[in-house]
């Protein structure tokens, strides 16, 4: 499922960003460009961190920005941004942002399960947060 939801055209790499808000905006760009989401969804993801706290940081250096399902989402999709220098997300350093555009409550469960399984392995996790985007793509979809 991840291979379909996260094609290479949805994956970007950049050295650094000024803020976590900018990181979420930049990570979302492929989904906006290809019509998966609207600007509302990007704003809601940022608002959620401000209101609900930084629990989207699921492990050290890895965040899963997302917002209310279906609100500003045209189609289920994912996009990934890899930063060389970690950005601070309310006290948590983050190098990988994986934006989840959720269409409904559970159609993305398979993709999240695959990610959990991959990252449960310590070597995979190290490669995920430190590797190149080719490594990350191979790891998640290979």
């Amino acid at each position, binding site marked *: 499922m991840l291979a379909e939801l996260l094609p290479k055209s949805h994956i970007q790499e950049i050295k650094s960003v000024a803020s976590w808000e900018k990181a979420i905006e930049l990570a979302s760009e492929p989904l906006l460009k290809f019509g998966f989401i609207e600007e509302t969804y990007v704003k809601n993801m940022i608002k*959620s961190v401000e*209101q*609900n*706290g930084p*629990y*989207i*940081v*699921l*492990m*050290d250096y*890895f965040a*899963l920005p*997302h*917002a*209310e*399902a279906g609100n500003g989402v045209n189609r289920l999709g994912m996009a990934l941004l890899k930063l060389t220098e970690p950005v601070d997300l309310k006290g948590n350093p983050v190098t990988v942002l994986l934006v*989840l555009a*959720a269409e*409904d*409550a*559970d159609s*993305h*469960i398979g993709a*999240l*399960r695959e*990610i*959990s399984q991959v*990252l*449960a392995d310590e070597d995979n996790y190290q490669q995920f947060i430190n590797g190149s985007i080719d490594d990350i793509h191979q790891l998640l979809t290979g």
Partner: protein
Amino acid sequence: MKLLAVCGFGVGSSMVLKMSIEKACKERGVECEVENTDVSSAKGTDADAVFTSFELGEELKSSVKCPVFSIKRYMDKAEVGQAVDAFLEQR
């Protein structure tokens, strides 16, 4: 027993937390039913325990009757395991 995994919208982080809790319960040989939900639905749902973030945990502690366990990293096996152990000891 029924456990709730809670995040702001009940679709992403809480789904990951549900998977982490299920895994921890399985490893401990404990039967459990875990449901992921959003913070406002959680307030009206009966459960044996709620697992959520520190920020939402503060809000939920005053509105649910069951114990609330706060977790910082929803995908961190060790941290989620500790919270599950704390819950099992309390029972």
